[in-house]
């Protein structure tokens, strides 16, 4: 597993909002070690039994939290994110969708300057099945096992985790990096982490059209990744010039097509699936090969 485990102490920024509260409840039900909620002006309250603080600094001081998951509205995310980063946490998971990308760019720069890991924004979060769930993923779909997953998409991750879990391929950790063009952690850092993680046998990379992140991932895989990689790219039939749901999912100027991404990944030695079910087949095959070794 990477990034998080059952001992990760988590605080929830925006814990008293509608979405924050409902996912706080779910994360607690999953067994995640939530230690604090943060909502300015609501210090002293509780949310589903969790103490609420006015500031991240106070929450960290009182609870020793090392990770924050953020549910605040888009225009407040830069402030909340910097509050978390400057408080010296290890990991900040930014769920919020619709953050103006220049705000995200500032957050990414700040996280880098302070050496803080930032996941998201516009992401489902991170899950290490049976240990901890940080974000909005439906925990019941994920099973513990040796597949490490990295994905730009939310529900598509659930879909693929579902068919993998059904086929007996549990997951070490799943990280949703988010669907925005500007984001925190990207493929290379996570590929490296999974490659170094003893609990991960096979890595599943779920990409989509737009940008060149998958091409960069392919270059990284070729150079550094020893473990089998199964890749899937959504948007194989997407028309050019149209934004397909995610802010980042757009083919522009002939760049960012699924075709070039799939080719780069194939060339880098990854197995490239065209449907979620094919992902399962390829993972099965890879695990069978590893077992034979």
């Amino acid at each position, binding site marked *: 597993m990477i990034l998080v485990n059952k001992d990760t102490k988590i605080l929830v920024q925006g814990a008293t909002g509608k979405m924050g509260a409902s996912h706080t409840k779910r994360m607690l039900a999953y067994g995640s070690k939530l230690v604090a909620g943060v909502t300015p002006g609501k210090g002293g309250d509780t949310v589903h039994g969790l103490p609420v603080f006015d500031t991240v600094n106070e929450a960290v001081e009182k609870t020793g939290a090392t990770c924050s998951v953020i549910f605040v509205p888009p225009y407040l995310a830069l402030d909340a994110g910097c509050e978390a980063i400057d408080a010296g946490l290890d990991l900040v998971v930014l769920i919020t969708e619709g953050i103006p990308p220049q705000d995200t760019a500032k957050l990414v720069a700040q996280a880098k300057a302070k050496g803080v890991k930032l996941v998201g924004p516009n992401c489902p979060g991170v899950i290490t099945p049976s240990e901890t769930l940080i974000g909005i993923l439906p925990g019941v779909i994920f099973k513990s096992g040796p597949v490490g997953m990295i994905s730009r998409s939310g*529900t598509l991750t659930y*879909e693929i985790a579902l068919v993998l879990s059904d086929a007996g391929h549990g997951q070490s950790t799943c990280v949703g990096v988010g669907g925005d063009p500007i984001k925190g952690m990207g493929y290379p850092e996570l590929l490296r982490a999974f490659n170094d993680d003893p609990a991960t046998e096979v890595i599943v990379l779920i990409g989509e059209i737009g940008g060149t992140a998958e091409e960069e991932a392919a270059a990284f895989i070729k150079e550094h990744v020893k473990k089998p990689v199964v890749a899937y790219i*959504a948007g194989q039939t997407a028309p050019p010039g149209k934004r397909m749901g995610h802010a980042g999912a757009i083919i522009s100027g002939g760049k960012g097509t699924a075709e070039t991404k799939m080719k780069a990944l194939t060339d880098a030695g990854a197995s490239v699936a065209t449907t*979620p079910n094919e992902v399962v087949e390829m993972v099965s095959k890879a695990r069978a090969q590893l077992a034979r070794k």
Partner: protein
Amino acid sequence: MNLYEYEAKSIFAQFGITLPPGARITKPEELRKIHFGFPLTLKCQVLSGGRGKAGGIKFAKDLKEGEELAKNLLELTIGGSKTESLLVEPKVSIARELYLAVTLDRTHGCPIFIGSAEGGIEIESSENVVTLPIPYPFHPYVARDLAKKLGLKGSLLLKVADVATKLYRAFEALDLDLAEINPLVVTTGEDVLALDGKITVNDDALGRQELFKGWQSKHLVDLSDRECRSTMMGLNLVELDGDIGILCNGAGLTMATMDMVKKFGGQPATFLDVGGGSDQEKTLFALEIVNENPNVKVILLNILGGITACDDVAGALVNFMKKNPETKLVVRLRGNNQDVAEKMLAQSGLKLIPDLQSAVKEAVQQSKTPVGAKA
């Protein structure tokens, strides 16, 4: 949100970038009131690209020719978009052309300058493109580094760096995705002018940019009527050529479903991401708008609940089926409150398919069955 050239230029002016004199006209006879003399350039104001090649830019040597050209241009449709107005400018005496833009770069995760020492080009296909990441907070030296990389010298280096600085200020202050000057011209008198420009405002920032309040609806002209209405409802609809209307929650899953439909021999008619946590009303709206498309023979609804509650979706489906008993529906629904949803839909005679691949295959098959197909 893409802006018209004249709007982009008004923003350039606001940030101190020098422009040629210009006037926007919506009737040929307004040409008579223009205070700068002939020859004139007449430019169609449209949001689609390829204006030059489509004949949307003309030169008039005198008023008579100008009025004739204006009449024709105002009736021109370019790339499916009607001409909104004309921007009229005196012909500028050009010594050289440059390209200058600020945009967000995914790889660097920050804004970048893009520049070229040749302007008036398609930047994607140019060989001489210079890019430069912009650290935050910005300082003007970065603009000078860009001008230097473009091979400029002396006062021209300073003037272009000054324009680049102002372009960045606009980009940051107004939450732009793209601020482009193409071409940035150097006149024979050594003035540096923004001759043409393009601005894309970030859609997610529209709610906090006072300047653009109320602009969105009039800038959706390159979308179909149904796409526009979806955008105004906060839904992302892309219309395609096929006959299977696809509705899913989540962009990646919607694309994957579309890809599977195609792989198993079907033709998607819509990409519609209803997003996470959709309520009944929104889901119903989504079903209705897909159903409005006359090409749609079958609707494939694929909801994998994380945030979305299946019973809410089921409620919308029950309503929709009452109103549209003829519409063929294939529904894959899985997640929160799935059991409740199943019961609700069973009463309406609709069977859920829990597995995506099976649902896709069923939808493809139904799209090929002529019986009961919509007229």
